[in-house]
């Protein structure tokens, strides 16, 4: 059983462009839900003994004042409040960056509303200044840029330039899809997200190169452009079980993390899940066919 991937190469390309268009629209309309790692702010994970309602928490926050970036006194009423699903009475509160005194004041106000509230109920406090986040994403982008250049050089050297550029396009597409999904579902983006993107990059390169390696091998026996579609198809089909099995084993682990890993790593694992699936599809439908579209002119393919 063999599948024909190359005859519809243009169709796959259109689908890819369609997905990119959806991504651009989503990013323009909904944007990304940046967490405090990027925007700066204070995030508290509190246990409120005896239970709470979001409105009740909001009312308490309304009684606390803090200084905003421009130095004005504002109440914390407009903070982000999220109920934590599961046992216990945990709540996540995300505010503008608070000083220690302001944090103390907030905790005092909470203790006034929930008398049993003690220091042990402060499960997690994070306070990030606005400077760090911008730097993190900037450094990651720069590192990604350099990695792309190195990738092109290495693959051009070991394979050929067209393989290199195609691999890079596939990689950029995969990361873009992950970003798009985060935008569509408004998944909170914090610094581990940088690691997610990098994992997807690694996974995508790996998947694409394995297929290109097979094309390279088959081209040795048959370098004619007349049968290039057959050669590419044969290569994708020969690698198909491997591509699917590798993504299955990876997805098995990612799914276990999703179910058993707990709340803290869900925002990390969910985009990964998407990235692995997308990486699999793009290496099958995008890498080979795209390279084929580009290379199917001329008489002979040089490797």
């Amino acid at each position, binding site marked *: 059983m063999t599948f024909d991937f190359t005859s519809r190469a243009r169709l796959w390309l259109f689908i890819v462009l369609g997905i990119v268009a959806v991504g651009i629209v989503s990013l323009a309309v909904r944007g990304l839900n940046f967490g405090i790692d990027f925007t700066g702010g204070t995030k508290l994970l509190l246990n409120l003994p005896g239970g709470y309602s979001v409105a009740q928490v909001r009312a308490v926050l309304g009684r606390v004042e803090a200084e905003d970036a421009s130095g004005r006194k504002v109440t914390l009423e407009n903070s982000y409040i999220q109920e934590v699903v599961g046992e216990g009475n945990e709540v996540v509160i995300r505010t503008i960056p608070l000083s220690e005194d302001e944090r103390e004041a907030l905790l005092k106000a909470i203790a006034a509303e929930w008398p049993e509230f003690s220091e042990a109920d402060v*499960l997690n406090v994070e306070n990030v*200044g606005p400077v760090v986040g911008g730097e993190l994403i900037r450094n990651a982008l720069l590192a990604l840029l350099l990695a792309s250049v190195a*990738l092109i050089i290495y693959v051009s050297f070991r394979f050929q330039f067209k393989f290199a550029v195609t691999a890079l396009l596939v990689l950029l597409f995969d990361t873009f899809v992950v970003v798009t999904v985060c935008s569509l579902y408004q998944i909170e983006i914090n610094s581990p997200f940088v690691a997610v993107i990098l994992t997807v990059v690694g996974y995508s390169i790996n998947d694409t190169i394995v297929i290109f390696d097979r094309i390279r091998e088959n081209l040795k026996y048959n370098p004619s452009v007349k049968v290039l579609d057959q050669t590419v198809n044969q290569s994708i089909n020969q690698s198909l079980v491997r591509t699917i099995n590798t993504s*299955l084993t990876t997805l*098995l682990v990612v799914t276990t993390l999703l179910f058993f890993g*707990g709340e803290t*790593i869900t925002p990390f694992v969910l985009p990964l899940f998407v990235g692995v699936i997308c990486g699999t599809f793009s290496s099958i439908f995008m890498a080979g066919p795209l390279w084929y579209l580009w290379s199917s002119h001329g008489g002979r393919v040089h490797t």
Partner: protein
Amino acid sequence: MIQWTKLLTTILVMTVILAVAALSVPAIIDKINLGIDLRGGVYVLLEAQPREGGAGAGEPEEEPAGWWQRVRDWFDGLFGRRSEGGGAISAEDMEATIAVLNKRVNNLGLTEPIIQREGERRIRIELASDPNNPDQNERSILELIGKTALLEFRNSEGKTVLTGANLKNAQAAYQPDELGRNAPVVALEFDKEGAEIFAELTASHLGKAIPIYLDGEQISAPQVRNIITDGKAVITGVGTIQEAAELAGLLRSGALPLELRQLEVRSVGPTLGTDSLTRSLWAGLIGMGLVMLFMIGFYRLPGLVASFAMVAYVVMVLGAMVGLNAVLTLPGIAGFILTIGMAVDANVIIFERMKEELMLGKTPRASVISGFHKSFSSIFDSNITTLIAAGILFRFGTGPVRGFAVTLSIGIIVSMFTALVVTRIMLFNLVNSNVIKRNWLLGVNKR
């Protein structure tokens, strides 16, 4: 005929893997450095700022702008930013600041704090929570950095004559006050140079007051009754004996040469950290079990071999992380668990190739050999490409990106080793022992 020595070699390798795993994993888990997010504790990122007209006016760090710095500046330009201004900070001042912080930590009796310089002007402090030391919390770190502890003796014109830099010792003590009650004081002892200056100061101020300032605030202004030549002085009016002891400790550690601003504070409750750790450990074990089941179900005997190689992989990666003193964080664990799924990839490539060869009608032995041979370039190139990317992320990334790059690189190198060496030894011996009579055992259903 069955070659028993070959078969026994395979079984021996498998036993060794299991034995090493059973013996080393508890020790490794005990030794591995857990990040604050897994053990609970406080993490603070500080940025140093030169003190206005203050002590920190050393020579600025003169590093020639390397190509990387220039690329970064250019990139910053694209984002419409410029390097942070606010005056230069010398490397010496940074080192001195860290030294002072370290001394203060010892005075406060905190356990195992990590105080490290990050980049040009940042300092990272990590303090793990300790059930035996309830003081080990956010507040104690803030105490650590909150005060400058700049001690100044000024003359009658208000000029600073002597500072805490000339202190040899500071101790909390009791001394009778004017009414004869025992009051807490801080007893100071100056070094030789300080003693001389102090002697001159007291000589020129006989009968007058010498105001003592701490962090720019006057804390007392004792009257000079006689010339003091032994370099000893006391500060009165310091509150309770505990406050006196704290102040003495701060003074002993010296003044912070730089002002520290908090950029980031994170604290994780100890229960949340342990909870995350147990959960992700379980997720890792379950995930590993599922991958093993899948591999054995799909590839049969080679799948079993790959499962043993996977155990070897986990032990070696954890061992390498301990050896490199890498810090394991929650995203790190998730990344590591993920590489377990990806590590079998090399095995999958080899086994698929073996099946192809079998279907072409080759013998099991020939198929295994050419399966390994033909998949080498694929495994090599795909892993090297990923490794290059990881290397660049390590060289040029910061913080979490770097830690991630380390985990990824270790994972890639070890997985290549386990697939190309460990799996190979087991599988070659198995196939050479002539126990594999049917292709079914190698994952092929057709004859």
